[in-house]
Structures are given as C-alpha cells and as structure tokens.
C-alpha cells in the first residue's frame, strides 16, 4: 500500500515535470534556450517511456528526439542568430487569434478522444480477439524474438520503408536549401583525444544495437542514430564532411536503405509471395539485411543533415 503510494508520487512528479518542461520550451522567447529546454524535455520523455516499460521507444527518443534532434535544432538556432547578426532581418510571424483558437479547439477534441480511448481500454468490452494477442502469438514465426522488431520489420515493414523515405526526403529538402555552413575549427588536444575514443566506440555500439535488436531492445533506428551521432561529433571536432565519403558515395549510402528494402520486397513478389512477405525460414536473414542497410542509410542521412547543406 505504502509502496503503491510512493510509486504514485513518483509518477506524478515524472508527469508534472514533463508537462512543465514542455510549457517552458514552448513559451521560451529565445531560440537557444527553447532548444535546451526541448533537449531536457526529450531526455525526460525517455525516462517516462522507460517507466512505461517501453525501452525501445525510450532508446529512440533519447537518441533521435533529444540527441540528434537537439543537435540539429541547436545548429539551426545558431545559424539564425548569425544571420540576424549579419543584418538579414528575420520576419517575426505572429499567429492570428483565429489560428490560436482553432488550435486550442482542435487540441481539446484530440484530448477528449484520447481520454475516451483510455477509458474504453480500461472499462470497455474486450473484443473477441485483441490485435496485440494476435501479434504476440505469431512473433516466433516473424524471424526475430523482439516483438518490437517483429512489428517494425515484418508485420509493418511497409511503414518502416516509408519512414526511410521520409528521412531521405527531409535530407533532400536540406540539400536543396543551399550550401553547408562553414566547418568547425580543428579540435584541440583534449577534444581530439575524446573523439579518438568515442567515435570507434559509437560505431561498435551501433553494430551491437543492430544485432541485439533481434532479441532485445535496439534495432536499425537506434543503431543509425548512434552512427549519426558519431558524424555529429566528427563535424564538431573539425572534420568538414562529418566523416562521410564523397558526394557520389554519400548519395548511394543515403538511398541504400530504401534500395535494399525495395529490392528484397520486389524479389519476394517475383518469387510469388507478397511484397515484403518473408518466407518463414529466411525471415531472420532478410530482416538482418534490411536492417543493416537501413542502419547505414539512417546514420549517413542524420550526419549529412547535421552538416546542413549541399556541396554547392
């Protein structure tokens, strides 16, 4: 009883701080401060996911939401500050009151719908067959034993393919916006020594994440985020291209994930199965091939996004 009460207090503090961080990040007038608060929000959110026993989502949130998203937004805030300093006026856009009221009304409806779903899940009539039970029953056939990976790469592989497409489209947008800003100065001895330790370790950990994703929390997105982080660190330490190869090779790397995904899907169709319907015996190796390619592509895309522009 006492134990339950403490857990409740713990959860309330967890949720209260999350909401406070979100409000602070949204209402901060200064972009740099807002980004810092957003990074803190992301790290806190990953704690919340861990508390909800969703370590896969917690890992992805910490690595992509807080880590790489934060790095990208810091770079953007810095660029904006420089451009404002150089006299390029940034037009402040004020939202019209109508838009604000519309947004508030929409949020209210969304919150109501979420509460209804929450209530239904707890108190509603359970249907004859819940989707989660059906999905969990067939995990052993999916080629991997981690249920999250089996959903992402087998049941819902089509979604993951499209997510890779979204990432690639985002990078194409960044590339089409202009040249990359000037690189950083070469690192001093202390930072050089840290980079020499951390970058190989990140690459090693990415390989581990990719492999362990079959049976435990991990997978292509987390592994790719670690590779991307290695790129960010290299760029900060003065490597202009963030450790990425030349432009042609970069383009190949970035399309690699979608290419391998699509080729495997089409080959399966050619073999008389559905698009991305893995045959039972080979599912594990096909998933591993797709995930390896996706890891490289995600890592390269995130690092290239941090470099932040085409080669002119």
């Amino acid at each position: 009883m006492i134990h339950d009460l403490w857990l409740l207090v713990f959860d309330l503090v967890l949720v209260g701080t999350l909401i406070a961080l979100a409000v602070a990040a949204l209402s901060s007038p200064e972009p740099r401060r807002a980004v810092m608060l957003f990074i803190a929000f992301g790290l806190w959110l990953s704690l919340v996911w861990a508390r909800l026993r969703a370590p896969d989502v917690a890992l992805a949130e910490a690595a992509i939401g807080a880590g790489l998203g934060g790095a990208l937004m810091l770079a953007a805030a810095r660029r904006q500050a420089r451009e404002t300093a150089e006299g390029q006026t940034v037009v402040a856009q004020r939202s019209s009151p109508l838009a604000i009221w519309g947004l508030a009304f929409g949020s209210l409806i969304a919150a109501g719908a979420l509460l209804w779903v929450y209530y239904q899940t707890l108190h509603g009539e359970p249907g004859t067959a819940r989707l989660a039970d059906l999905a969990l029953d067939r995990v052993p056939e999916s080629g991997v034993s981690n249920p999250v990976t089996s959903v992402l790469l087998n049941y819902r592989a089509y979604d993951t393919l499209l997510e890779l497409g979204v990432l690639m489209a985002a990078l194409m947008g960044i590339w089409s916006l202009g040249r990359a800003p000037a690189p950083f100065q070469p690192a001093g001895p202390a930072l050089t020594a840290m980079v020499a330790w951390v970058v190989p370790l990140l690459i090693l950990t990415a390989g581990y994440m990719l492999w362990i994703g079959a049976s435990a929390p991990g997978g292509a997105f987390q592994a790719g985020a670690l590779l991307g982080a290695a790129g960010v660190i290299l760029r900060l330490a003065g490597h202009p291209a963030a450790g990425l190869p030349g432009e042609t090779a970069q383009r190949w790397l970035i399309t690699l994930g979608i290419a391998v995904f699509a080729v495997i899907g089409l080959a399966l169709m050619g073999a008389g199965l559905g698009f991305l319907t893995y045959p039972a015996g080979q599912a594990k190796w096909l998933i591993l091939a797709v995930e390896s390619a996706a890891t490289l592509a995600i890592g390269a895309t995130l690092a290239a996004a941090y470099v932040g522009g085409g080669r002119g």
Partner: protein
Amino acid sequence: MSWIDWLSAVLVALGALFFIVGTVGLLRLPDLFSRLHALTKADNLGLGLIMLGVLPQVGGPLQGLKLLMIWLLVLLAGATGAHLIAKRALRGDGEDLFE
C-alpha cells in the same frame, strides 16, 4: 533487507546528495568556473556513487561491466565538456565555426 541492500541504499542516497548539492551549486554559485566545478562533482562523484550502489543489485558481471562503462563514458564526456567550456570562457578559444 540484508547488509548489502543497506550498503546500496546508503551509496545511492549519497550519490543523490551529490546531485542535489551540484544542482544547488549550479543555480547559486556566482561565476561560470565555480558553477562548472559544482556540476562536474555531481556528474563524476554522484553518478559514481549511484553506480557503486546499484552494482551489487545487478544480475551478473556483464551487466556490472556495462554500468562501469557508462560511468567511464560520462567521466570522459564530462571532463572534456568542462574543459571546452572553461577554455572558451578563459581564452575565448572555443574551437568554433570558421568565420
């Protein structure tokens, strides 16, 4: 609770104390260098003590090794970060963007 559990609890509480003191220092100390000093103590000693406290509770030596490695990584990153911030403040040399 066995004596091992008590030891864990005491070590974790001590670690948390370091984090609290470090946070108070970060908020209250007057200049950047003393704030940096408070922050790195919280990171290094606070996390170190918490790790020592959790160590007897883990399932096996491999998990313990992972904890130890996390602590070492935080040490490495914290020391380098503090060095970079201090260098920037002291000499204006932040290994910055080329202008």
